[in-house]
């Protein structure tokens, strides 16, 4: 493969507390990270953009930081972006079609598309748009659990899909933000799909795995089973609230509280022993001592509450442990909280691990993005590269923003298929 086959992709994950950009070279399906940028974002709340110009500023700054690291000759015009927030919901749908009377009765892409179209033709409120249509299985003449029916024979083709929709205005706000920052948006993916793609092994997805992505403003739950996304739920509680819980307790500024949380925050008192930490006052002119262990109860009540919500959401949906036999993967910035792994193990049982972007997917600056807070951004690149074209959403229908980079990728990918 020559260098000309390399494509540059820039992905922007607009989170509640920060915007993270990763610039990567795509070689084969390998993501070679060449630049990472991070910028504080004050333009989002609970996962959705509340101030476009501030969010756009953060996007621009974050992309430029990543560009600086990637090198001067890297130009970013097009980006792919993430969308998050409570407005994202998923529903199951079912589509049916019969094969056209072709001679061989062999299933073609057109047949597949028709089945998907049929599944998509459900009443959708005017203020919502479809973001992802994920086939969970195909059923051909009654035979189920078929993942790829292309080339198979049959008469009647059915499909079960999981459709993720979002509030049109909020999705539009992401587009506007990217545009205001000066970039073209090639595609948009929901955050839990990103983080799931980056952190989960294929066999986990096959066996069933529950992903819990604790971000700044939201906690996203995603269930993968039999290699397909089966359920997502966004709970509007994130790490930002933990900081908020500590502010009145520590009586210092938000930014100092955030630092203390990151450095010393913990869930189990005994993990701190008698360690004494110094809490600076608002002006950082003096400090006062406190036992580190005293931070624990202020944090743990929020975590208890959050995981009660997680468990209830799963129960509501009828999801039990048998559906996530491979266990639970915790990711997102909040996953770094000291004691969380133990808490989830004790509280929800089964095997629990912290998810970071999988090394097998990434080359280049892996050591930089080897952290839970980069799961989403790496994941959307991975999704863009691997699943492009498989995401059955009609990209062109939402304004024809399919542009240069993705065309290149498409062309380049087509060589493999």
């Amino acid at each position, binding site marked *: 493969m020559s260098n000309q086959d390399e494509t540059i992709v820039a992905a922007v994950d607009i989170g509640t507390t920060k915007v993270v950009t990763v610039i990567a070279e795509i070689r084969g399906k390998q993501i070679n990270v060449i630049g990472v940028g991070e910028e504080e974002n004050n333009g989002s709340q609970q996962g959705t953009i509340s101030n476009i110009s501030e969010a756009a500023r953060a996007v621009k700054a974050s992309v430029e930081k990543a560009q600086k690291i990637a090198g001067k000759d890297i130009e970013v015009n097009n980006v792919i972006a993430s969308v998050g927030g409570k407005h994202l919901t998923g529903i199951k749908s079912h589509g049916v079609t019969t094969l056209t009377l072709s001679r061989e009765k062999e299933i073609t892409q057109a047949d597949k598309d028709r089945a998907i179209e049929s599944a998509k033709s459900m009443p959708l409120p005017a203020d919502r748009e479809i973001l992802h249509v994920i086939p969970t299985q195909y059923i051909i003449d009654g035979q189920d659990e078929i993942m790829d029916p292309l080339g198979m024979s049959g008469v009647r083709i059915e499909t079960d899909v999981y459709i993720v929709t979002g509030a049109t205005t909020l999705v539009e706000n992401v587009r506007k933000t990217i545009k205001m920052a000066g970039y073209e948006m090639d595609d948009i993916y929901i955050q839990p799909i990103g983080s799931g793609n980056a952190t989960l092994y294929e066999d986990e997805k096959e066996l069933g795995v529950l992903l819990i992505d604790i971000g700044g403003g939201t906690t996203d739950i995603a269930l993968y089973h039999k290699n397909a996304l089966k359920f997502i739920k966004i709970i509007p509680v994130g790490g930002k609230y933990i900081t*908020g819980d500590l502010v*009145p307790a520590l009586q210092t500024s938000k930014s100092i509280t955030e630092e203390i949380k990151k450095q010393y925050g913990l869930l189990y008192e005994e993990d701190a022993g008698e360690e004494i930490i110094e809490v600076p006052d608002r002006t950082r002119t003096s400090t006062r001592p406190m036992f580190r262990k*005293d931070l624990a*109860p202020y944090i743990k*009540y929020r975590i*208890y509450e959050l995981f009660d919500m997680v468990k*209830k959401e799963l129960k509501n949906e009828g999801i039990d442990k048998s559906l996530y036999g491979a266990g639970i993967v915790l990711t997102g910035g909040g996953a770094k909280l000291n004691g969380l792994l133990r808490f989830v193990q004790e509280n929800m049982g089964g095997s629990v691990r912290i998810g970071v972007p999988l090394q097998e997917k990434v080359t280049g600056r892996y050591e930089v993005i080897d952290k839970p807070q980069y799961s989403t951004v790496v994941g959307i690149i991975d999704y863009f590269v691997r699943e492009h074209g498989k995401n059955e959403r009609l990209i062109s229908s939402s304004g024809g923003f399919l542009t240069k980079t993705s065309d290149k990728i498409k062309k380049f990918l087509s060589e493999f298929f």
Partner: protein
Amino acid sequence: MGKMKFELVEEQNTIIDSSDTLIKVVGIGGCGCNVINDMCQMTMRDVELIAINTDSQSLNKIDSHEKIQIGKKVAKGRGTGNTPEKAQKSAEEDRNIIENKLRGADMVVLVAGLGGGTGSGAGPVIADIARGMDILTAAFVITPFNVELNEEKSRIVRESYASLKDKVDMIVDIPNEKILELFTEDTGMDEAYKAVNIVLIDIMRGLVKMISKTGIQNIDFADVKRAMKGKGNSFMGVGKASGANRAKTAFENAIKNRFMGNPNLNDANFIVINFFGNMSVGDIKAIEELKLKYTGAGAMVKFGHTNVADMGDEIEVTMLISGLHDDALSGQGGTSEAYNQFTPLAAASKKDESSKPEESKETVDKEIQSAIEKSATDFMEGNYENEGLAIPTWQRIDICRRHLPKLN
């Protein structure tokens, strides 16, 4: 669409009178009816005033929207002669009448003197009726002078306070004894009593205004309800100030209420603070500072401010502090001793404590867990639309708050 319009108006800082919340103030017994009478004479607006007594003669003298003579059979139109049992029976006798008069109220405020007959005996029954109708119920009780106290009267005060506290969402105590400390010896008793009533009226006015006026940062009935519901010992104060530092001074005036002692904000569970006036940027800044200062306490703080153009230089603040510990109210300086010697509150609380068995760590943990679980369910069922989610979990859930380590 209606809602949209409403929000638009709010943005323009216009004030709308809302008449959806109906408050009924119920004076019980001689003392309570006197307060009602004063309220009528001082034209208390936006509330319905109801006087309840067994004594027909004294009831005749009262000027109020509604009057209920209870216990025609038991008390035969006379007073209850300092026997709460008689008053209790009287109220029970006319339960239906009382229920009918309270119907339709969103909130009932009971005003009664404790230590006599009717207030002490009928008060808890009326509170029970109101609560039974799912009406938010507050009680302002006036407790007697120390001189008046003998063993019997102390017992009545103690028992009626405890029983009332049990039945209302929130109770505010105003000891008459404070009058002795606050007025010079040659002040007429009439004037002194009137002063107590004025404090009560100011508070009621503040409360009504807080609920009915739509502010820029608005406090409405739902907030007040949340602050009061099942909160027990409470404090309410109104303070005014003008000139430099007016926001801060008004705030402090509200807290240093002459009759109720200083509430210890650190022990409060919920604080609602509403400012009225022609607010300036400086005032808002000052309020922000106060907010920061008091959010440090382990309480939920709800701030509101309403621009009232015609108030000139003056700023008024209404405070509602609820969920205080039994011993959280302390007098000012040297007067605290006298207040503490006056025993009803202290005695009632001591009794409470001794009867409560030590909670084991496991029971506490279990209680905490189920409280948190309940909170999680509530948020989830409300589709996480409730703004309370941003408030620290430990602040929102009473039992969590009580089991936190004290940070220096």
